[in-house]
């Protein structure tokens, strides 16, 4: 595979992760468990959308077909979205959202500190900007994991179940294909297989501190890099794309 195609695929995956998770978090707007937390989660959503904008814009430039960030964000079909499956899962109760967020933030943090050293200058610049924000996303989701895990009997039981439920979607974060191999060889991004054991250690330590058990690795969902999504993705896109499908070319 040539470098340009691999880079385009890679950028879309990163951008889709941020866009779809940001969209899911934005559904909490006005529904957070308390005012400060409502603001915090929407700030996080906004940061993620910011990351996706920079990444989509660059993906459009790399592809060289004149596509804008909006074309890429709003005008693809489901199979063309390459976000990790964990990002498209339903928000559930707040513990479900926190479990999903912590596991993703921990992954995203380890990924972006490596991307900061990317051989591609634009990727490195976007990552250097984003990592400042991802760092406090991670801090917040760790704090919530501790508070809920080491909280009341009920909060403990609920968040343990949330981690158990989401676990089967974590393997998908580390699946690599031909595009990844080109990206690694070119020094653009890290080998996810090297990140996986570090991620696991960090997660284990956080869950232990939160008096939670790390779920057992069993069968894992996969397929996001081929655009095979969960049943939830279609529902997300129907809302996300509504304006652009109804009023093609509309601008803010």
């Amino acid at each position, binding site marked *: 595979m040539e470098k340009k195609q691999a880079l385009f695929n890679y950028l879309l995956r990163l951008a889709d992760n941020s866009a779809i998770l940001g969209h899911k978090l934005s559904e909490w707007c006005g529904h957070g468990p308390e005012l400060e937390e409502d603001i915090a989660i929407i*700030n996080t959503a906004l940061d993620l959308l910011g990351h996706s904008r920079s990444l989509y814009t660059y993906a459009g430039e790399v592809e060289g077909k004149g596509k804008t960030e909006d074309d890429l964000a709003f005008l693809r079909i489901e199979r063309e979205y390459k976000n990790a499956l964990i990002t498209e899962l339903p928000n559930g109760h707040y513990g479900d959202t926190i479990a999903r967020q912590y596991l993703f933030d921990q992954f995203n943090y380890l990924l972006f500190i490596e991307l900061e050293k990317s051989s591609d200058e634009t990727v490195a610049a976007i990552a250097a*900007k984003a990592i400042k924000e991802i760092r406090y996303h991670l801090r917040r989701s760790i704090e919530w994991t501790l508070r809920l895990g080491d909280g009341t009997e009920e909060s403990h039981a609920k968040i343990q179940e949330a981690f158990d439920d989401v676990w089967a979607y974590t393997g998908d974060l580390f699946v690599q294909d031909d595009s990844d191999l080109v990206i690694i060889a070119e020094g653009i991004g890290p080998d996810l297989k090297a990140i996986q054991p570090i991620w696991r250690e960090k997660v284990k330590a956080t869950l232990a501190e939160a008096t939670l058990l790390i779920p057992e690795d069993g069968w894992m969902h996969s397929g996001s890099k081929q655009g095979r999504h969960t049943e939830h993705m279609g529902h997300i896109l129907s809302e996300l794309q509504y304006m652009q499908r109804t009023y093609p070319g509309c601008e803010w």
Partner: protein
Amino acid sequence: MTDEELWDLLDEVMDPEIPVLSLVDLGVIRKAEFVAGDPVITITPTYSGCPAMKVMEEDIEAVLQGVGFDEYTIKTVLSPAWTTDWITEKGRKALQDYGIAPPEQATSDKGALLGHPKEVTCPNCKSRKTKMLSQFGSTPCKALYQCNDCKEPFDYFKCI
């Protein structure tokens, strides 16, 4: 107009969300110069998702047009990433007077070494006995604090 006069002109453009702080004081304007007679302004976002960036661009366009420039370029760069160290001394003073605690300078408290939250001075009564209520405030760049002495809640322009 000289490059210096161009900077002075841009110093009149205020942050849309913190109207006492100019874009120059905020450190959003990286470069302002004339290239072949036309102004070229380089800006950088404070936060990746800062919704005010678009408004800032439009406000810059408005002042340029206001003094008669039709041809100009506004470029956005991400690197080097903006940090609160780009805020000028004048900007820090303006924040303080407006009731927003300016970002604490990196050297001012040893708690950072131990991973403790930063000591922030209350912009209202100047007490150092304050506590963080939330890392996230009314805009992406601010955190929410409260003073333990005068009890007033206040915004802190967080340090990144």
